[in-house]
């Protein structure tokens, strides 16, 4: 009964009806879990066809809106301008019937008893009523089970009519939250909890598992085909060559027969494109010879080719020469200078890359290039040669005997193997994929790296009456990813709230996202330039990003604004900070008051900057004696040990201390992974990275490190799961 009141928010909430229940943490949690579903509905409404369906839902949901504890529906009710008049009418009418509704709720327990013949456990959720209500109370029971540690059993629920988006949302957020709830529990327990929740809600826990990313490969292929297609215009140039060539032949009194027969045999276009690819190879070669004598080199190369072609009538010999050339390039035996020459694979990549960057322009350039000093040059050269030494029909004959088909096949094979074989197309696909990811990420992150905070989209805490309090509460409970959302809602509401920004920054740091941590802390500093915690946090974050100058600036700022040590600071230092001066000042401060843990913390950070790890370790140990329960200090000590490459045991002992104090400290999990990886224990590092990522899938660093560890541990089979960020698969494969 008391549970019900918690869920429904009690009578007080029922009267006001429209304000969401801040006094109701459970309701808010449920809101957090399914909050975005209303947004999904909003989106649906934008689609004309969906209008009929949603208006129906509205009818259905409206009575719920008037019921206590049903804050879920408000965003969508308010947002729908179209129907709002009607709703208002409906509402006022319904307000009179509020008492009825309330009575109905009061009656529900009886219904419960009727439905649940078996003795119901105290936290048995209400399993009837409108879908939203069922869902919210069921989620409450999930959250509740975490407190008591009672395993959640799958429960049959009535049809809820959840959309695909709702399901996705519930699945993602419940699994992240579960990792935080049960940070100290085993992986199996967490999985069974989540699976119980999901199966009750009829959400397929595996539907998230993306296959082998067919989309990407298809895209890759498209690009490749496209690039091949664009090559075609170039063929005209070579077509022209054929014509020109035959004209030359005509001038010299030779019959056109050769050209015709050649065309008949191999098709002009086909040969032309072969020739063109050959040209591309040769262009590479002439780049190797030095950019300034491009034309000369091209002539040289083509002459060599022509020479070979005319001199040797043994096609096998030709092939072997060509083979040697191509394979030398693909084996990387050719010494390259200043990026000018790549092996066949590199050239493919470069072409491809350019293609991707500026499709048409590259094609133009290529065609232009070909026309200006490719075939034309060759033709001229060929023509002059022709003029110099009169034609011998023999050459023509030999040339046509060369089994160009074989040659073309061989070439095709070479390109196939040489260009793609060496580093297997898989690798390229991955590299390409990563490149795409990187581009997307850099678009998103370009703001972050310049110190601008990037807000999450779809934040269910927007509109929450007191997101700061909610955020503090969530942070205290260790639900870091949720706390980020709540705190973001706070600073959107009050951009000048230094405390909101500060806690947001701390949360990001603990969640192992230094870019966002720095961005948030900078805003906190703007709002409150002398906040010591903010200055210290900024110093630490910049130290982590290896930005020494910035770190020094903030750590010195800490000293300058400190009520006690401020007098030590020398104003003239601000513009030209030297590490030695700052370190000296802090040592003085430490002598002034050896009982102040903060000074030792700053000293420890400073010694990390100067890589005097032994001193840093000593400082952190001193600080820990004064503040043994500061989990972030344990992590700092562990991280310093890791950076100074101490034995694994020492590092892990300290990190474990941090995790004992704060089980969902994502940074500490990630650091455990790093220390294992640095000691070459890649399999172990993978487990810790995966654990960290399960709690914060947005920790980009950990994803990158995970990838490195996977390839070092020869687990290339899981790279795909890493690239598609398939946490379910990774957790199954690497349980901790």
């Amino acid at each position, binding site marked *: 009964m008391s549970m019900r009141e918690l869920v429904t928010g009690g009578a007080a909430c029922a009267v006001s009806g429209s304000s969401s229940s801040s006094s109701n943490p459970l309701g808010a949690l449920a809101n957090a879990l399914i909050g975005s579903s209303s947004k999904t509905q909003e989106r649906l409404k934008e689609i004309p066809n969906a209008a009929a369906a949603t208006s129906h839902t509205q009818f259905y949901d409206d009575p719920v809106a008037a019921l206590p504890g049903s804050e879920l529906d408000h965003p969508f009710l308010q947002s729908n301008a179209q129907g709002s008049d009607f709703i208002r009418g409906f509402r006022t009418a319904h307000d009179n019937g509020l008492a009825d509704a309330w009575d109905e709720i009061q009656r529900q327990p009886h219904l419960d008893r009727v439905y649940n013949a078996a003795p119901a456990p105290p936290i048995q959720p209400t399993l009837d009523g409108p879908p939203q209500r069922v869902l919210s109370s069921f989620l409450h029971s999930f959250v509740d089970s975490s407190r008591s540690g009672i395993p959640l059993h799958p429960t049959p629920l009535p049809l809820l009519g959840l959309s695909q988006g709702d399901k996705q949302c519930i699945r993602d957020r419940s699994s992240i939250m579960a990792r935080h709830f049960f940070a100290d529990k085993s992986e199996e327990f967490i999985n069974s909890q989540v699976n119980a929740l999901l199966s009750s809600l009829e959400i397929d826990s595996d539907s998230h598992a993306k296959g082998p990313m067919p989309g990407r490969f298809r895209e890759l292929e498209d690009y490749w085909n496209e690039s091949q297609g664009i090559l075609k215009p170039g063929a005209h140039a070579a077509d022209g060559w054929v014509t020109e060539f035959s004209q030359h032949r005509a001038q010299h009194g030779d019959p056109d027969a050769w050209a015709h027969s050649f065309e008949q045999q191999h098709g002009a276009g086909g040969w032309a494109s072969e020739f063109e690819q050959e040209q591309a190879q040769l262009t590479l070669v002439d780049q190797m010879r030095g950019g300034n004598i491009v034309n000369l080199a091209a002539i040289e190369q083509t002459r060599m080719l022509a020479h070979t072609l005319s001199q040797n009538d043994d096609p096998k010999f030709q092939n072997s020469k060509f083979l040697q050339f191509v394979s030398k390039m693909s084996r*990387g035996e050719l010494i390259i200078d200043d990026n000018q020459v790549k092996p066949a694979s590199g050239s493919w990549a470069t072409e491809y890359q350019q293609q991707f960057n500026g499709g048409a322009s590259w094609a133009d350039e290529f065609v232009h290039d070909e026309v200006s000093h490719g075939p034309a040059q060759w033709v001229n050269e060929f023509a002059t040669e022709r003029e110099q030494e009169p034609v011998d029909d023999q050459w023509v004959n030999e040339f046509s005997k060369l089994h160009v088909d074989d040659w073309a096949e061989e070439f095709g094979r070479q390109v196939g193997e040489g260009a793609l074989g060496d580093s297997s197309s898989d690798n390229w696909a991955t590299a390409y994929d990563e*490149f795409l990811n990187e581009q997307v990420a850099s678009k998103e992150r370009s703001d972050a790296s310049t110190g601008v905070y990037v807000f999450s989209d779809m934040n269910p805490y927007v509109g929450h009456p007191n997101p700061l309090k909610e955020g503090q509460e969530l942070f205290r409970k260790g639900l870091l990813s949720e706390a980020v959302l709540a705190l973001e809602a706070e600073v959107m509401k009050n951009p000048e709230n230094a405390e909101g920004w500060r806690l947001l920054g701390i949360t990001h740091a603990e969640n192992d996202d230094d870019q966002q941590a720095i961005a948030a802390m900078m805003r906190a500093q703007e709002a409150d330039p002398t906040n010591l915690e903010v200055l210290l946090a900024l110093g*630490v974050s910049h130290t982590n990003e290896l930005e*020494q100058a910035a770190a020094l600036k903030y750590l010195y700022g800490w000293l300058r604004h400190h009520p006690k040590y401020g007098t030590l600071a020398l104003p003239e230092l601000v513009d030209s900070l030297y590490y030695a001066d700052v370190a000296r000042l802090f040592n003085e401060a430490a002598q002034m008051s050896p009982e102040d843990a903060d000074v030792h913390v700053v000293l420890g950070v400073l010694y*990390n900057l100067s890589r005097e790890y032994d001193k840093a370790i000593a400082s952190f140990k001193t600080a820990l004696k004064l503040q043994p329960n500061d989990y972030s200090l344990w992590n700092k000590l562990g991280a310093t040990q890791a950076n100074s490459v101490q034995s694994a045991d020492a590092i892990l002992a300290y990190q474990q201390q941090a995790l004992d104090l704060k089980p969902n400290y994502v940074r500490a999990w990630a650091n455990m992974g*790093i220390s294992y990886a*640095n000691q070459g224990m890649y399999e172990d590092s993978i487990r810790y990275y995966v654990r960290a990522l399960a709690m914060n899938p947005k920790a980009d660093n950990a994803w990158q*490190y995970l990838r490195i560890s996977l390839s070092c541990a020869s687990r290339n089979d899981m790279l795909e799961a890493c690239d598609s960020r398939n946490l379910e698969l990774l957790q199954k494969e690497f349980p901790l």
Partner: protein
Amino acid sequence: MANTELKSDNLFEMMKIHLATDAGKELTKKIGLVYQINIAPKKIGFDEVSYVVDLKKGEVTKGKYEGGKPDAIFTFKDDDFIKVATGKMHPQIAFMRGAMKIKGSLSAAQKFTPDIFPKPAKL
């Protein structure tokens, strides 16, 4: 000099210590090549600082390689080197974008992967 300090300096210092460990020795066994890495603070070609990562002897030294020719020479901007060494940027992509210049043997260059560098743990 606080203001001319490169981010990469930190990483090379860590590398120094790292090579003395078992994992580091494993690395010299596996790769056995000498790399010279030039780091430019802002723009390639200007104020470059050179480090030699000798994975034959297991040493990191500041300055150009003296003892012949390194197997491969890389040139990066400070930021880009950090990105490659910490796995933020794939070496192949860095090369394609011109963020990484290579001189020397390509097969040697291909063994230059992010996993040879230790990762900084975070405070």
